[in-house]
């Protein structure tokens, strides 16, 4: 696969697969057309710390997952939840973000107040995600609709064709904060999850990246980035500047 | 029966008929000759309103068909037309070609229409072809079916536009034979043709058209043997 080829490469430029639209982790800046977000800043900082070059390629989420599995990319950072199932085919770094799933409904929806009310309702999410698996496992009586992109799910919710959307917390919160959408969150954070950076199995990069990540956490760079995107300092470190 | 007064017809800016005057009596057989592009077809087509008349009057049995208020379809079922290229309906059998008009226009049922059609097929000598499709007929047979199709509407007048000029020479005779029979039965006919033999034998009168008007008209004998107009003379010298 590409891993060995790229490891042998003296310039050490790695291809990083990322999701094409998962605010605020990675998304396209409306003005510049560049990818930006928490994941993007973090992987750039890690690359600098660990001393390699990166080349970011964005795609639909299921493309990231199958691309990592097939060894197509060297690194994947896409708000990807660490799961036992994925670990069978993909290597993960140490967790870098605590996440979970959350339900969004229309602002004027009073029927759904928590996940207990999902039975018989149309619930949208994105194909190949932990949300899809969660709904299948815990709400077999809900009508699951999976889209190739999460935006289409929110749009369907906004138009009233879906009753609820379940997806990763920070993303749901971002959309709810967008007035244009007219959405609100309900219930608790479901299924505590952690995001990890993905690698093809047996990648030699895992250790380097873990070391670099720890250094960034220790020296406050991680918190700088976290603060920029989420408005707080997770580990309470001093700003590195 | 037909009375044409100062008939003009233009396509866009080009005037094709420039004031035709003609009177055709009942049971008369009139042949129209003239060089290509002189307006013969256009004249004929104005007589059953396949072309809109630009100005002038055309009376058919007393009704002015240039009048916009006239019922075109009613006029057309009084005036039959036979075309150079037959224009049979290829997706219908010979019999269906003939019965379509009676059924759809006259409101006959199938049996009634066939009772009209079968004798006509016999008349044109094609009784055995009733149930075949036009593609399997020769050109001469097609034209005879086309004549039968027109006759099925029991027209008072028949128009023929070069009915034999798309036929192989050996097939012309049968079609002319059918037309002669029609003439003998007293049908009023206007025939655009290059068959001078037919004009001489059957025609009561010949009109010579050129440049959108009728330049000369006379009996066939006079016109062929002793044309007066120099244009007629020139035309006949080339054709005969």
């Amino acid at each position, binding site marked *: 696969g590409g891993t060995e080829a790229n490891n042998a490469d003296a310039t050490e430029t790695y291809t990083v697969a990322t999701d094409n639209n998962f605010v605020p982790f990675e998304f396209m800046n409306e003005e510049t057309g560049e990818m930006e977000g928490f994941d993007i800043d973090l992987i750039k900082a890690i690359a600098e710390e660990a001393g390699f070059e990166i080349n970011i390629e964005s795609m639909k989420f299921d493309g990231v997952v199958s691309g990592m599995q097939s060894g197509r990319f060297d690194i994947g950072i896409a708000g990807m939840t660490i799961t036992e199932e994925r670990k069978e085919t993909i290597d993960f770094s140490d967790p870098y973000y605590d996440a979970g799933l959350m339900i969004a409904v229309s602002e004027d929806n009073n029927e759904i107040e928590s996940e207990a009310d999902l039975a018989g309702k149309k619930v949208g999410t994105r194909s*190949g995600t932990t949300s899809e698996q969660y709904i299948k496992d815990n709400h077999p009586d809900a009508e699951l609709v999976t889209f190739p992109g999460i935006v289409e799910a929110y749009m369907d919710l906004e138009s009233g064709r879906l009753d609820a959307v379940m997806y990763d917390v920070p993303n749901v919160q971002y959309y709810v904060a967008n007035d244009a959408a007219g959405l609100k969150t309900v219930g608790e954070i479901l299924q505590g999850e952690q995001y990890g950076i993905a690698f093809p199995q047996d990648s030699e990069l895992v250790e380097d990246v873990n070391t670099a990540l720890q250094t960034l956490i220790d020296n406050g760079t991680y918190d700088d980035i976290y603060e920029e995107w989420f408005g707080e300092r997770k580990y309470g470190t001093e700003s590195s500047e | 029966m037909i009375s044409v007064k100062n008939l003009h017809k233009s396509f866009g800016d080009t005037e094709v008929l420039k004031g035709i005057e003609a009177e055709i009596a009942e049971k008369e057989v009139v042949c129209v000759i003239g060089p290509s592009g002189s307006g013969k077809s256009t004249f004929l087509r104005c007589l059953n309103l*396949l072309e809109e008349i630009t100005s002038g009057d055309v009376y058919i049995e007393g009704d002015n068909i240039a009048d916009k208020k006239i019922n075109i*379809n009613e006029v057309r079922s009084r005036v039959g037309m036979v*075309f150079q290229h037959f*224009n049979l309906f290829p997706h219908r059998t010979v019999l269906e070609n003939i019965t*379509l008009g009676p059924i759809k226009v006259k409101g006959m049922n199938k049996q009634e229409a066939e009772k009209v059609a079968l004798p006509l097929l016999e008349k044109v000598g094609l009784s055995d072809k009733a149930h075949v499709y036009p593609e399997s007929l020769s050109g001469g047979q097609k034209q005879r079916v086309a004549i039968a199709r*027109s006759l099925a509407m029991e027209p008072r007048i028949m128009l023929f536009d070069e009915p034999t000029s798309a036929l192989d020479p050996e097939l012309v005779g049968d079609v002319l034979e059918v037309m002669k029979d029609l003439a003998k039965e007293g049908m009023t006919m206007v025939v655009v043709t290059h068959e001078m033999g037919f004009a001489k034998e059957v025609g009561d009168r010949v009109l010579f058209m050129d440049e959108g008007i009728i330049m000369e008209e006379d009996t066939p004998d006079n016109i062929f043997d002793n044309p007066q107009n120099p244009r007629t003379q020139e035309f006949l010298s080339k054709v005969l």
Partner: protein
Amino acid sequence: MEFITESHYYRVMPFLLEGLVWTLLITVVGLIIGFILGAIFGFARLSHNKIIYGIATVYVEAVRGTPILAQILFIYFGLSDLTGINIDKISASIIAIAINAGAYIAEIVRGAVYSIDKGQMEAGRSVGLTRNQTMRYIIWPQAFRRMIPPLGNQFVISLKDTSLFSVIAVTELLYMGQQYYGSTFAAFEALTMVCLMYLLITVPTAVYLRRVERRLDV
């Protein structure tokens, strides 16, 4: 035997068969409506009335000039965004196929009617039929025969176009294949079977149409 039933090629089939049902349903219903639209706009394109002709031309050009993916998104999201009217995704898919195929069929109808010899109209009128009767009994039956090959071709195109409706989560053939490899990662096997399913319909159709065409030629 276990070797076969264990393989992805085998396990993906129940998914694909379900998808195929939707694919065919959307295609067939969409094309029936599309044919009606096509006939109406095809005749409108033959009209001498400038307004009718103009409207039909704008429809045909706008549809043929934009991707069907943009059209489905427009119908599904754009219209509901503008009007607040929500149509479900199957209806939206059927409408998209109908509108899209309608524009192409309009050109098929126009071309076929136009190709019928002008003498047929004249012959019809000269036996006393009205313009409409001649169109109905003489021109249309002949034109329709000539439309069979291009209509069959449009069926193949529309069938393939339904694959795009996976963006709005329509559970058609390709979407079901994607679902399968989304959870198993067996992209090659799933997509191979998806393609075979399409070919199973499109190739016999193409072969049959070529035969019809040859027969009509004679």
